[in-house]
């Protein structure tokens, strides 16, 4: 932050700023110079037993203090019976799960008094009783609750590869008017001891060419949408991050 790089906006994990003291004070300082997007990982929009009101209250406190441009969460679940299973777990794609997510997105938007974005997760398993394609599920959530969509292009690629979907079909099924942010990231390829290969969304490397190509498709369809590159493990030098951001900026410019 000392070099004040020329970047349009910054995104942080909401959960890292829920206390007092230096972290939130530092973020407030950055907020004076850059718009901030608050990206949550722990609200668990898909919990069968309801939203955690105390956690929602902590999110509201951060939102009130930081006044972010965007507030986002994931199409996933992490909490059951009052325990936080620290990962973004996939939902069964069923009518019951859809009703649950509708209800919770409505509750969050009315509690915060603003629109939120919901992001498609990367996933490594599917449920036998799922009946709705994920892209239809996400589109239905956006239509019904009027939330926006945070389209993670890398997650589409990863999930499509893991489950045998066509990533272009996924992308083209999403409602263009609901897309308000795009995420890009690197991922890794893991060969499992049990046999088979899974792509793992670990935010620890360069965006691969196939994902850049899918991003170009996304921009062609959605227009120039604010884009964030997630690189939060195995962090490289700032210059490498800025080069990746420049790559995205170049494609964004072409989309105007």
């Amino acid at each position: 932050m000392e070099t004040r790089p020329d970047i349009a906006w910054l995104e942080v994990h909401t959960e890292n700023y829920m206390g007092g003291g230096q972290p939130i004070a530092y973020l407030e300082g950055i907020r004076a110079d850059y718009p901030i997007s608050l990206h949550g990982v722990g609200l668990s929009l898909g919990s069968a037993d309801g939203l955690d009101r105390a956690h929602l209250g902590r999110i509201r406190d951060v939102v009130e203090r930081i006044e972010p441009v965007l507030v986002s969460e994931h199409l996933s679940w992490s909490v059951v019976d009052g325990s936080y299973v620290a990962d973004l777990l996939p939902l069964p794609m069923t009518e019951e799960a859809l009703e649950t997510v509708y209800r919770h997105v409505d509750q969050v938007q009315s509690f915060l008094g603003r629109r939120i974005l919901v992001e498609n997760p990367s996933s490594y398993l599917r449920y036998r009783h799922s009946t709705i394609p994920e892209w239809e599920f996400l589109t239905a959530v956006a239509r019904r609750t009027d939330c926006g969509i945070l389209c993670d292009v890398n997650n589409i690629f990863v999930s499509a590869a893991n489950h045998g979907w066509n990533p272009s079909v996924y992308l083209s099924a999403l409602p263009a008017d609901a897309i308000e942010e795009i995420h890009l990231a690197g991922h890794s390829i893991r060969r499992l001891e049990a046999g088979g290969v899974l792509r793992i969304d670990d935010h620890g490397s360069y965006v691969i060419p196939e994902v850049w190509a899918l991003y170009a498709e996304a921009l062609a369809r959605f227009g120039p949408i604010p884009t964030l590159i997630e690189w939060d493990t195995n962090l490289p030098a700032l210059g490498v991050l800025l080069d990746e951001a420049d790559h995205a900026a170049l494609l964004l410019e072409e989309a105007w």
Partner: protein
Amino acid sequence: MPTLLEVQRAIYRSLAAGDDAACDELIVSDAIPAEARLGIYRNTFLGTLTTALRLAYPAIHRLVGAEFFETAARIFISADLPRNAWLDDYGAGFPEFLAGFAPAASLPYLPGVARLERAVNRALHAPDAKALDLSLLAAVDPTDHNRIKFAPHPSVSLVQAEHPIDAIWRAVLAQDRAAMAAIDPAAGAVWLLVERRATGVEVARLTEPGWRFAAVLCASRPLQAAIDAASEIEAASALANLLAAGRFVGFELLT
């Protein structure tokens, strides 16, 4: 068809307790079996929580080494999952877990250092709160003074241990081998006050009666109880010091 709650409980049992029994019927197994798919999530979940504990207990991590820490953390995690995603607040039960963890028994000061680290972590992340406005206190009728109960600043903790845990904690975090070697773990008990100041977290040694006095007040018991608990000290100046340092954020009168 399983309900959403049944699905989530089954996944929870798999990740937290390694019980995959119900998952085979739920999850698509093809070239990759359901257990291997769940294993990806289990690794992330355990890794995230182990990292949260390591960040909250860095001195414990250094004292016992990475491998021991990971083993202890995994046993603790499976028994004491976080209640929510504010992981800066996770691990309150870790010191007590270590106190009962037989493989750690050869380091008798370990649970004390862990309690200190918990207090430091709490001081780091406690909510911001304004110090008590002393003019409000001045308005209290002097005959009511002994009935005052204070609300402590949320960053303040009082920690007591039978070993010089503050010296151990400092030397370990500074990786100062000479200082570590110079510490006599049997040097005796310490009475500590941990809090967040404008410049960062501070760990200060108090006298034993001064600690008792502060501990009673920080437990929101009335001033008279603190005076009774520490009759050997000058209560007025001890209280003035606590107030001047902004360690209270409010008060009420015992009714």
